[in-house]
């Protein structure tokens, strides 16, 4: 099986720099990810992980550097541009409306409708069915119930709903996940890591920001280490170790890809 380095990168960010006024958040950072792989981004607080990701999802514009997607230049004015290009994110907060049902959350902002006597109404039944289908077929998840407020589901199931929303709504090519297991216990973490693998296995490129090196080594194919706004190194997960990556995060060693 060809290693991910041999395939054409889906996303190629080169020399990305970002300044906020007098503060340099990112300095000459590269990132590339191919379809069907999990890239983990690690680094201490303030390393620039979130900033880099926000540039990819269109929330920020880079001060310097270039981005291409499948060889074509990638210019994003805002987040909806990114979604149009198939790049979406699942945030740490999950962006779920807790009082609404899982299917309502899954379709939030892009509801399915039907016309009844000329009036456009929500098609609640179809949304419910579709939600069940997406969760089951693409993520292998069956929720405890579709008729409860999303807040009463477990952390892992809420995560699944948030991921299903991203997977369903766009012709998703790149999924970014910001600290997906931060608030989860061990059992839920294991379920979420399986979800990440399920998404990857469908050919979607997954970028995961995580503080947990255990999770990173469990689920990722490559690891990108950031330190103080710069790229400290990129390694293949298989060829590396937690100690080694920890060293790069802290600055004891620097390693080229």
């Amino acid at each position: 099986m060809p290693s991910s380095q041999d395939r054409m990168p889906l996303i190629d960010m080169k020399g990305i720099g970002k300044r906020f006024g007098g503060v340099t958040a990112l300095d000459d950072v590269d990132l590339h990810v191919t379809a069907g792989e999990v890239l983990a981004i690690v680094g201490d607080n303030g390393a620039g992980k979130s900033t880099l990701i926000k540039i990819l999802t269109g929330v920020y514009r880079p001060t310097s550097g270039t981005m291409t997607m499948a060889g074509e230049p990638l210019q994003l004015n805002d987040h909806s541009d990114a979604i149009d290009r198939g790049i979406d994110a699942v945030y740490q907060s999950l962006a779920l409306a807790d009082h609404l049902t899982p299917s309502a959350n899954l379709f939030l902002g892009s509801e399915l409708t039907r016309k009844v006597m000329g009036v456009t109404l929500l098609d609640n039944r179809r949304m419910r069915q579709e939600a069940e289908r997406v969760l089951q077929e693409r993520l292998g998840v069956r929720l405890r119930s579709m008729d409860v407020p999303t807040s009463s589901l477990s952390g892992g199931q809420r995560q699944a709903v948030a991921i299903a929303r991203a997977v369903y709504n766009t012709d998703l090519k790149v999924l970014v996940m910001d600290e997906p297991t931060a608030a989860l216990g061990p059992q839920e973490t294991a379920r979420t890591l399986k979800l990440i693998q399920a998404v990857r296995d469908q050919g979607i490129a997954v970028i995961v920001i995580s503080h947990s090196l255990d999770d990173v080594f469990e689920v990722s194919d490559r690891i990108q280490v950031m330190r103080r706004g710069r790229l400290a190194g990129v390694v293949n997960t298989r060829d590396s170790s937690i100690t080694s990556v920890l060293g790069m995060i802290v600055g004891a060693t620097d390693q080229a890809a």
Partner: protein
Amino acid sequence: MSDSTAVPAASGEPDALAAGPTTRERLDRYVALIGPMAMIAALLLLMAILEPARYFRLSNFDIILKDAALYMPMAMAMTLVICTRGIDLSIGSVAALTAIIMAYMVKSFGFPWWVAVPLAISLGALCGLVNGLIITRLKVPDLIGTLAMDLAYRGFALVLAKGVVLSRFPEEIVAIGRGEIPGFVAIPVVIGLTTLLLGYVIYTRTRLGRYALAIGSNPEAAELTGIPVDRYKIYVYVLMGAMAGLAGVMLAGKLNAVQATSAPFFNLHVIAAVVVGGTSLFGGRGSIVGSLAGVLLLSMMINALVTLRIEFFWQSVASGAVIILSVAFYTWLQKSDRDGGGSLAAKLGTPESRRTLRFIALLFAITGALFLLGWIFAGETTAVR
């Protein structure tokens, strides 16, 4: 793009620990109704003991229903407003203002009623639009924004009508307020129930209802998923204004008169009805059926006070007490982490409770001491009235 490759079941045991909603969750849907239902039941019980003959008459229930009907349209719209985590305190003034303008259109300008009535509703919608713009564009918090507009709209009403009572409306408008389809049911009740039915459809089956709930439940999530939050907030306030305009028409018809000071407590009555009916003031969760129950409960209560010949001014005290008790009861029902440990005495005995009790005692002592002081140094008395 990625074809929907079915993920094999080996990706994990089914994520269901207990299939389906728990019994508690199935009941949760109806909890919103238990509050007002319990209070209605308690009220009926009380009246059955105290004054059964006069309260439990068909004609009396007719009066209650007609009184409640006036508040139904506004309760519907207010449910949506509160679901978005908003509030509208200006509805009484909007009702009075639009009713006064309608009165002038009909009397001074000879507008036919079938233009004047929709016009009043449309003017109400415009008032709601102003509220919505103030809240979304000028970013004034809804509490202070609608409170200030309440003052402004009332001011406009006074400017237009001054102290005059505008009366003798065309019979169609009076019919809207107190008419009856012979042998069937009162027109205001039909209007009220229809608007609530419309509200139920909006709430459960339209984008407006869904987005109103989403905005109240998690405003950031609503923004992130691309919901045009400002536009839908404006829709909700416009609907509220329109319903206030409708209520103004119904009130003018019912009393066959309107003045600048009409509808003084619409806002409290409607908000109380909605909150008593189980809609959460924190947004995200509401119930149109609950608001219907709340409206009925308040009208039943006021009617009970009148039937018991309780002085008019005590009615406000009673209303306030009922609202507080029902909201407290509802909040208690919602608590899933009730602290079962310890009796009331134990709870009062904690150091923190003791400090609070000491503080309360101090306040009473100061007030009592001042009364005592006044009594000791009391001089000549003069007639109060």
